[in-house]
């Protein structure tokens, strides 16, 4: 054989445990490859490493000898196939010595599978990817904005179409949503705003005491809660509590193909799922905001009574002097926030694709987006009201 001339010594690759090995030996009938020891998953790494160093380029064998081989599994078979080459392994297994029929079948199956399969090329990364990602990000941001605008239009038209036809009102769904988003949130909203009211009162007392104007603490608490904090804190709380719930509910319905089922039954998901949720938040957020305002002012009153020596009667009389338009400015923002929170929560739910992980991603995204929108709108409203002198 001509090939035998290229190989002038025995080449051995041995695993670290010294019991699995590959021996190339020169015989009269060309190169014989002896497989020794266990070729199993446990020895895979060490075998592969020693093969790479001992045999940078493995010679083409003419014979296979499995007499010394112990166990073989798919990992070992895959490694052998890679060393010998799938085609030559397939050709040589028939004449191989000491190979049991089970292991021959295993080698044949693995080698056949590997001939059909080419390694999928790993994706190359370059610095251009960063620019591409930036482009994708801005593009998807713009697309998201268009989507939100479109969804808003769709929601509004459906809302008006439903409102003028009392026969299509879904009272049960609405009441359930009001219960879940409103009634169940009363305690947490009241507690949170009570504490913030107390904190604002302490803060005001500390700063204003320097000017001998501690009494204005009452005005600080009342103004801030009527105009800003009452509605803003409630909206942020509901953005975390309700927008996420909407996304998760609608998203898991989407994963289960329930939305598609609704469509095929001739029902409009906008009407059944989105409208009751928007209406529920439009009802509950103003009510909760009102509770938040009261609760914040009560928090301020408690601090006033116990640490600033402002009696309840005095506190109330100062609160009553505040013009009622501040209350209106605060309450006017509530329906806008409610609408945006419900809209983003539902839209993110509809964006869910396929898997449970997608539900999680969109839930996060809906909370972040709705808190962002609430704060941006509040800032815009504050500027607007200041300019208008309201």
């Amino acid at each position: 054989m001509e090939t035998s001339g290229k190989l002038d010594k025995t080449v051995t690759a041995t695993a670290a445990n010294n019991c699995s090995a590959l021996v190339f030996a020169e015989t009269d009938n060309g190169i014989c490859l002896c497989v020794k020891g266990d070729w199993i998953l446990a020895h895979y790494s060490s075998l592969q490493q020693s093969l790479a160093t001992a045999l940078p380029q493995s010679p083409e064998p003419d014979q296979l000898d499995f007499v010394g081989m112990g166990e073989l599994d798919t990992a070992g078979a895959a490694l052998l196939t890679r060393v010998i080459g799938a085609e030559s392994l397939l050709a040589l297994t028939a004449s191989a010595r000491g190979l049991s029929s089970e292991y021959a079948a295993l080698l044949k199956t693995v080698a056949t599978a590997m001939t059909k399969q080419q390694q999928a090329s790993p994706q190359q990364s370059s610095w251009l990817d960063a620019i591409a990602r930036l482009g994708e990000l801005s593009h998807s941001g713009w697309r998201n904005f268009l989507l939100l605008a479109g969804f808003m239009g769709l929601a509004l038209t459906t809302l008006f179409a439903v409102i003028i036809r009392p026969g299509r009102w879904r009272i049960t769904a609405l009441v359930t949503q009001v219960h879940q988003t409103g009634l169940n949130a009363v305690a947490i909203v009241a507690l949170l705003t009570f504490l913030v009211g107390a904190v604002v009162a302490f803060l005001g007392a500390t700063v204003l005491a320097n000017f001998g104007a501690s009494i204005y603490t009452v005005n600080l608490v009342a103004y801030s809660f009527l105009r800003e904090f009452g509605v803003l804190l409630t909206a942020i709380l509901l953005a975390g509590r309700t927008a996420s719930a909407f996304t998760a509910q609608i998203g898991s319905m989407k994963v289960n193909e329930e939305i598609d089922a609704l469509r095929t039954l001739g029902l409009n998901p906008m009407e059944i799922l989105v409208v009751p949720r928007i209406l529920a938040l439009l009802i509950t957020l103003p009510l909760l905001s009102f509770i938040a305002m009261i609760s914040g002012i009560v928090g301020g009153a408690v601090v006033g009574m116990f640490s600033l020596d402002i009696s309840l009667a005095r506190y109330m009389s100062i609160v009553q002097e505040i013009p009622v338009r501040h209350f209106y400015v605060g309450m006017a923002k509530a329906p806008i926030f409610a609408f945006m929170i419900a809209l983003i929560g539902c839209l993110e739910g509809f964006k869910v694709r396929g898997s449970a992980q997608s539900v999680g991603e969109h839930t996060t995204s809906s909370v972040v987006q709705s808190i962002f929108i609430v704060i941006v709108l509040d800032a815009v409203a504050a500027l607007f009201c200041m300019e208008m002198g309201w």
Partner: protein
Amino acid sequence: MKRVVADSRQTAISVRNLCNRFGDNLVHENLDLDVYPGEILGVVGGSGTGKSVLLRSIIGLVKPASGEIRLFGEEILTLGARDAALEKRIGVLFQNGALFSSLTVIENIALPLIEHGGLSRRDAEYLASVKLALAGLPAHAGNLFPAELSGGMVKRAALARALALDPAILFLDEPTAGLDPIGAAAFDQLLLTLRDAFGLTVFLVTHDLDTLYTSCDRVAVLSRKKVLVVGSLEVVAATEDDWIQDYFHGPRGRAAASASAQATSKG
């Protein structure tokens, strides 16, 4: 080519006096079942007869009320901490695949290789691509996420993951449910090939009559809280029992039987 069972007393799975109950509902009562190495055992039964519960009891996901379950002679119920070595010898294909949705197909298959096999990520992913090819999936499917696969591909990817550690016993829960007949037939063939190549013992829960006829060596019928009959398909089909008669000799059973007979006479 079937693996010769060296010792007929040696069992791969042995279930004795198994009782399972959920509340007042007794699912299994003194159930006995043996599975021998190298065979494909098909488990059939009407809905609610506890096929999946039996499977989950054997792989240790459901703790039975009483009874004993041995895998390769080892009692699994009395093992205090779950024996990791035993878990490496079983592979499970869940009904809906149960692929991890946040990992790609290759990463799904490589996960047990990295965690239990101690391989580097590169080696594990290379071996995973071999398993992928064994399960009959094209290489490009490896970079996809489970949500992007078709039903048949999900089953094959899940099979590749079940085979990752070269298990001795493979548990399949309705592997061909939801596949088209061509895909189901290809899956049956794949199962036979793998069994012959790896000497796998297969515990197969199925409703698919074609699968029973093409790939199962023995069939066990679950009914009335125990294994009603177990044996070759002819023996089971000939058993006097209303449910078995309806099952094997109903219109679908006859169709599958005649299809199998035709295939045998041609082959």
